[in-house]
């Protein structure tokens, strides 16, 4: 989080762009700041921007921007406010979507003017179920039943956090890792095999399972890094293809005697040994397992790696501007391979959390859609380790609550996907959210041409100044 101790890798960037950006930021409008960030991010239009703009990672950036504004003003236009409004907006839009498609709502809307409360109830009911299924179930009989939802959220969040960290790490190094899905599968494959085929003493067994998962993911991620570094193959394409290959490989292996459960015709593996499972944290009535602690540890580790280690600095430098990093003597190829291997290992950890914690066996659907959700998690967390952690928790809550919502109110769980993607879309575009809520600073007219309120005018005049 705090990047004060290490120098900014952006300092390596294109000088003119940097100077231009710096001179523009104070006192400019937000639109101008966005434009200048883009100039900075693309080294003056010379290279593609990294997935997460470097400028958004800096603390206090917004305070610089809004220079003379009041504290209240800063709060209302700052990043935290935008994030909050994004979530709110997404939830409202999701509510509208549910409202227009729900036949009961249509019925309620028929006598809307008589009893407007009914309409609102129908819209709020799914969300109530969502909260009940993800945080606290006040209708539960005893404390265990009331707390069950929150433990479920943590359980579901565990693989999301691990895989999300992998994707976030890739983003920071300028790599777009869509391959978490395949890396999870490989981690699960390796971990599960050690888990059910080897029989080892307690402690050592779990350790080896985790290690195998890390190696499995690292191999599958490292291949991408290797191809990217050696042949220049685009990582987006390679990771997409490797996802499919990993999936088919898993399906194939589950039909072979080595992996298929004895006496079963279904493509599922035997149960993992009890020594290979994560211990349950709160007793057998909860699914929450020690994998969550591993996820927390992984978050700390990634934070240390990115913000305190030399390698992490190199990753960020490569992500900010590979040419400049190369000029500065950083081995870009090595960084690329390493970052993909570590990202793969983290995703592999998510696979281990699935087979060794939640599912307890290997099946074709072991990765579910975690690998793709992980991308949105990393984006929502703005690719910072702790941001990803909390984004993982939020999406875990959506997942866990969505299941309860579907069971209780027959609202399809797909609505969760809609809300999740809307949140990420809004968070990625702060000016859009500000425009919707009318929060754009309309302080000064910097140039004669553009009115400060209009976005395009602002962008153009800001960059032209």
């Amino acid at each position, binding site marked *: 989080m705090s990047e004060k101790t290490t120098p900014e890798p952006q300092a390596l960037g294109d000088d003119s762009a940097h100077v231009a950006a710096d001179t523009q930021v104070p006192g400019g409008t937000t639109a101008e700041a*966005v*434009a200048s960030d*883009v*100039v900075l991010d*693309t080294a003056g*239009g010379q*290279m593609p*921007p*990294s*997935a*997460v*703009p470097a400028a958004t990672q800096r603390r206090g950036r917004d305070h610089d921007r809004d220079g003379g504004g009041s504290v209240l003003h800063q709060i209302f236009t700052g990043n935290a406010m935008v994030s909050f409004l994004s979530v709110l907006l997404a939830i409202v839009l999701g509510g509208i979507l549910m409202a227009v*498609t729900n*036949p009961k709502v249509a019925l309620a809307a028929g006598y809307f003017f008589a009893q407007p409360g009914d309409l609102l109830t129908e819209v709020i009911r799914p969300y109530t179920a969502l909260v009940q299924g993800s945080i606290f179930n006040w209708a539960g009989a005893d404390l265990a039943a009331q707390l069950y939802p929150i433990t479920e959220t943590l359980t579901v969040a565990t693989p999301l956090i691990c895989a999300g960290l992998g994707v976030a790490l890739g983003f920071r190094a300028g790599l*777009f890792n869509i391959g978490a899905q395949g890396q999870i599968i490989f981690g699960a494959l390796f971990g599960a095999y050690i888990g059910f085929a080897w029989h080892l003493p307690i402690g050592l067994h779990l350790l080896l399972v985790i290690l195998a998962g890390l190696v499995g993911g690292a191999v599958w991620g490292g291949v991408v890094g290797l*191809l990217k*570094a*050696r*042949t*220049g*193959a*685009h990582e*987006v*394409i*390679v990771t*997409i*293809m*490797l996802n*499919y*290959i990993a999936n*088919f*490989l898993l*399906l*194939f292996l589950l*039909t072979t005697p080595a992996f298929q459960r004895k006496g079963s015709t279904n493509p599922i593996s035997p149960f993992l040994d009890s020594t290979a499972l994560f211990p349950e944290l709160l007793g057998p009535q909860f699914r929450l397992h020690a994998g969550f602690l591993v996820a927390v540890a992984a978050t700390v580790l990634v934070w240390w790696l990115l913000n305190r280690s030399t390698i992490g600095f190199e990753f960020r430098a490569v992500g900010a501007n590979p040419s400049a990093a190369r000029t500065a003597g950083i081995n*870009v*190829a090595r960084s690329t391979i390493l970052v993909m291997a570590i990202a793969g290992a983290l995703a592999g950890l998510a696979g281990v959390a699935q087979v060794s914690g939640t599912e307890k066996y290997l099946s074709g659907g072991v990765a579910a859609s975690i690998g*793709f959700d992980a*991308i*949105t998690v990393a*984006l929502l967390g703005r690719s910072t380790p702790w941001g990803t952690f909390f984004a993982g928790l939020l999406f875990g809550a959506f997942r866990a609550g969505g299941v309860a919502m579907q069971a209780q109110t027959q609202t*399809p769980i*797909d*609505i*969760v*996907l*809609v809300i*999740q*993607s*809307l949140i*990420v*879309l809004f968070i*990625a*575009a702060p*000016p*859009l959210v500000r425009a919707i809520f009318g929060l754009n600073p309309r302080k000064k007219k910097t140039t004669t041409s553009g009115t400060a309120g209009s*976005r395009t005018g602002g*962008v*153009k005049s800001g*960059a032209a100044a």
Partner: protein
Amino acid sequence: MSATTQSPAGKQPGTGKGTGKTTGANRAGSRGGTTELVSWKAGVGLGLLAILGTVLFGFLANTKSAGFRIAEARDPNASSTAAWITLAVALAAAAYVGFRWISQRREGGGVDRWIPATTIAAIVVLGLAALGVARVEKITVPSMVFGWICSVLLLALAAYACFLTVQRRKVPAWVGGSFAVVFLAGFMIWIVAGGRDPEPSISLAGLMAGAVTLAVPLVFGSLSGVLCERAGVVNIAIEGQLLLGAFSAAVVATVTGNVYAGLFSAAVAGALVSLVLAVVSIKYLVNQIIVGVVLNVLISGLTSFLFSTLLTADPEHLNKPGRLQAVDIPFLADIPIIGPILFRQSLVGYLMYVAVIVVYVGLFHTKWGLRVRAVGEHPQAADTVGINVNRTRFINVLMGGAIAGIGGSFFTLVSVDAFSKDMSGGRGYIALAAMIFGRWNPIGAFLAALLFGFADNLQSIITIIGSPVPSQFMAMLPYALTVIAVAGLVGRSRPPAADGIPYVKG
């Protein structure tokens, strides 16, 4: 990343690529000059594949024969006439193009880019027409003998590539091309001969026709990608455009009772997805890849949600579109083999040909196309000469979306006559791969998409006749092929220079 060195020898004349387009290809790295380090990639890669081929086609071959059924004409007389005429036309074309090729080579100048490809195409058509004229019903090939012949050829080609590398000479394109053809032939014979029947055979015409059909959404998707990326906007949202196109085609066609209205609405739906992409990424300068990925998730969630709530509740009135029937083009459809493959398509299929040609001609032979490419390569320069960069991008992204939307209608109006959850099944991503495989060129993307369609259809046919390879590996094939191609071949091509970089005037 050894690609920073530029060959001092510069461009070689006579490689057939010497148009102005290749000037930026300095990333191709080691080419030509004797002082350069010649890459071993081709030699080693071909060598490994040749060994693999030898093991599979030679050592693992069985004694069965492989059959390829050919003629399935409905009207033998019309078919025969068409075959003769095609034969004559193909012969004339092959002779003319071949003559142009030889005479241009003799003059010592570069050969026009289109000539080698056209010659090969003409010869292939000639061969197929000859088969039709001879009324060959079925080709039967002893797999063992042909397997070994193919293995020896593969090994020889790989050895030649290695020899050239030792001599520090560039491996010419024809080596790779003929290697691919021989490998494909050997693979087909081996895999068909491995079928369950004592005399396994597959229908070649059926294989090809199915490949073209399966390729239709891929082609539309990759054309969408070409249009966007040539203007400098990365379009990952192809998947979402296809899916929403499929959805709205199904719903609108059912509600209005008119499939053409469905087709039109599919284009509108695709453009709608593009509109979001354009507004957020061009106006609000958000990273284009992020927007694309998020849009895919959004559309997947949205269509699945609406499907679960509305369409399943009342499929009769919301999810029962009619089908676009296949239409024969009178004379052309009677040509043996080629006719059923190319000229017995639905309206969407014919639109595909039109789209490929229009996009190709538009991009490379019109003023508009030149402007679009300028915007994609060097937006600052384009802006300087008075082109509105962001408006050009906006329009291109919208057009791309509309094209992908039409491709999406294929799923619900041609392939299956109802919408189902996530029915595009990741084909948008494959289309993206096809676009990159095809080097950001409409024709290349079209051919790459055909290749994917071919692999897809081959897999389903092989699963039916039974094969020595587990079906999962066959299903893996297109994806593995893409990785190999992207790592081995396309590494040398390059995207438009400003691809993915938002443009800020200044």
